[in-house]
């Protein structure tokens, strides 16, 4: 059996993490959940996922902090920012921080799977 691609879901809303996990597992990914920054960094270290979905506004370490730290731990990690924040030039800002894609909440799962498959193809 082919090894599943690992995705880390980072969001302080556990309900969201859980629903996203159901979807991602349904479309064939192995998922991990972290509801705060420290936990997320721990999982990155231990599981070395290929992909991470990242919320920006979180208590404790926020999305930007995690982006910076995670880039050092795992420069090849594919990062999809999923946020309710909508400020102008956000894409540029995230691009600059090393994020690969930006999706707005409420998330369109079709768009997410398109984005992920696009990356997976590149990975394979």
């Amino acid at each position, binding site marked *: 059996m082919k090894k599943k691609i690992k995705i880390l879901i980072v969001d302080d*809303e556990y*309900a*969201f993490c859980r*629903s*996203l996990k*159901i*979807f991602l597992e*349904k479309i064939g990914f192995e998922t991990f959940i972290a509801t705060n920054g420290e936990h997320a960094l721990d999982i990155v270290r231990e599981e070395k996922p290929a992909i991470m979905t990242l919320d920006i*506004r979180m208590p404790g370490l926020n999305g930007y902090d995690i982006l910076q730290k995670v880039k050092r731990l795992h420069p090849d990690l594919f990062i999809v920012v999923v946020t*309710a*924040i*909508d*400020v*102008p*030039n956000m894409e540029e800002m995230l691009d600059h921080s090393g994020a690969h894609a930006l999706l707005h*909440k*409420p*998330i*369109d*799962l*079709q768009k997410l799977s398109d984005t992920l498959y696009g990356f997976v193809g590149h990975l394979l």
Partner: protein
Amino acid sequence: MGRKILVVDNHPMVLKLIANLLEKGEHEVRTAEDGLSALDILKSYVPDIIFVDLVMPNISGEKLCRIIRNMPHLQGVFLVILSAIAAEEELDFAALGADACIAKGSMTNLARHVARVLELASSADGQEKSRDILGLDEVATREITRELLSSRKHFEVILRNMSEGILEFAANRKIIFANPAALTLVGIPEEMLLGSEFTEIFCGHSLEAVSALLKDPGESPKKISEEAPVLLNGRQVSLQFLPVTGEGGASTIVIIHDVTTRKQAEEKISEQNKFLNKLIESLPHPFFVVEAEGYRVLLANSSAQRHLIGLADYPRQVPGEVACKAPPPYAPLDRVQQGKDSFLMEYVEPGRDGQETTHEIHAHPIFDKKGKVTQIIEYRLDITERKKAEQALRDSRDALEKALDNLRVAQQVAIRQEKLASIGTLASGVAHEILNPLNIIGTLAQVMQLEKIPASMRKNLDEMLAQIKRATKITNSLRTFSHQHAFEVRMVDVHALFDKTAALLEHDLNLDNVRVERHYAHDLPRIEADEDQLAQVFLNLVSNARDAMPAGEKRIIIETRAKDDGVEIRFRDTGIGIDPVEVDKIFDPFFTTKDPGRGTGLGLWIVYSIIENHCGTIRVESEKGNGAEFVIFLPTHLPGRGECPPAVEK
């Protein structure tokens, strides 16, 4: 026993006859040829009997009698009047104080009557006094004498009642006549005055003046004029000397005029004039009086002379000189005649050095009895400084008002911006908190759709997702302006920006059969603006216009025009228009006329906010059912923050 007798008669023959007659009777006789001589004698000589001729030059017999009777030391003297006019004049000699009267007739008769009188005088206390005129029956009446006497009486009445004093003095300056007015003026009783030296009625400087005048040998009529009167008994008098040559030698009649009252009046007038002169002189501004016709200057204070002489036209002359040729440009005569009253006007004097001065001119007419203006009193106040001060005050008030307006506008803008900012902050927070649950619901709904579920449930999930989208749209709109992103100003080509924005919507517009017409001004300047925000304005207005045109002719007309300091952009559509009662509300947040789910009510509020951020204005012109037109003004250059007026023109 011999008596002391004085005989007074100007007729030497009569005098000699009576003297001889009496001397034969061994009486002591003294004689005098006129009243003055008699009075001289009587000063030192007290006779028992005095014979007085009635008609004499200088002092008449009548007067002499009265004087004698007024002299205390002569009270007891026996006084006899000799009258040559007894037949013509009914003489009440007793009234004159005389004891007897003899009508002058023939010398024989006269001698007889004199003897009779001596008898009468001898009788103790004159008990046998005769009331009759002795010898009256012996003289005939002469008509000419009667007439002369009558005429004299007239003159006497006149003299007695004249207000002028009449004095007469003889060649030796002895006073021989004084009418009642003269007596009053001199203030000396007649009996003392007559016979005294004329000059002695004066004293001090007046005495010197009169004496000098009388000494002057000149032939011309002598006078002490009103202009330089002399003092007589405390009164100021003028004197007129009239030489008379007559029976008793040369004498002089003096007409005395009391000018005291007039002099006093004149002095009073002169003092008043001085006072008035001082008064107008004390005025620092020009004050003058001109004749209405010809503008001859009658009176001018030195300020008027100093300031107005040499000015353009009026009044060029000092008082008394010929008038200025041209009447003044503000025509005081016309004005006072029109108004029949004073007038007050402001007059701007060009001034020779080009320095304009402003004057307040007051003119008051003086009318004659017929109501015609004869003179005009004018005075001028130089109000140049006052005017300047007033102007300065007005300017500073205007400046203050403007500053206050600016402040008010700035305050309004600041308040609105603050309100906007706090709404934005709140909206941003709320949006984030709403979007997260929506996100979870949405994700779960999508996950559920992946399951094998009945068609009805799938449909419900679709509806759920549609509603989530709707809520998301509202939430996103709400926080559009909470974005604290920098306001990026660059020079924007409005036409190019609109074309670019319209291209984004072209597909939708074509689908809806909406035609966009462009009426671009060829000289439209680029303006300072945030391109993204302005694009948002165009987007919102175009999509609003599209939504307002559900059917019929669908046209959006954009028209641009260069203005003084900015650009005007007009968006017109052929849609349903705006209800007049709603016009005032269309820029309010959450106001919408669209069906639920179609509009957020934030589109025009965002437009308004952006225009406001650009210091522009927006107004709407619409008729229900006849389309709407939004008129936007945007300045070419953005002023500093807080300096914009409110964006909505009501």
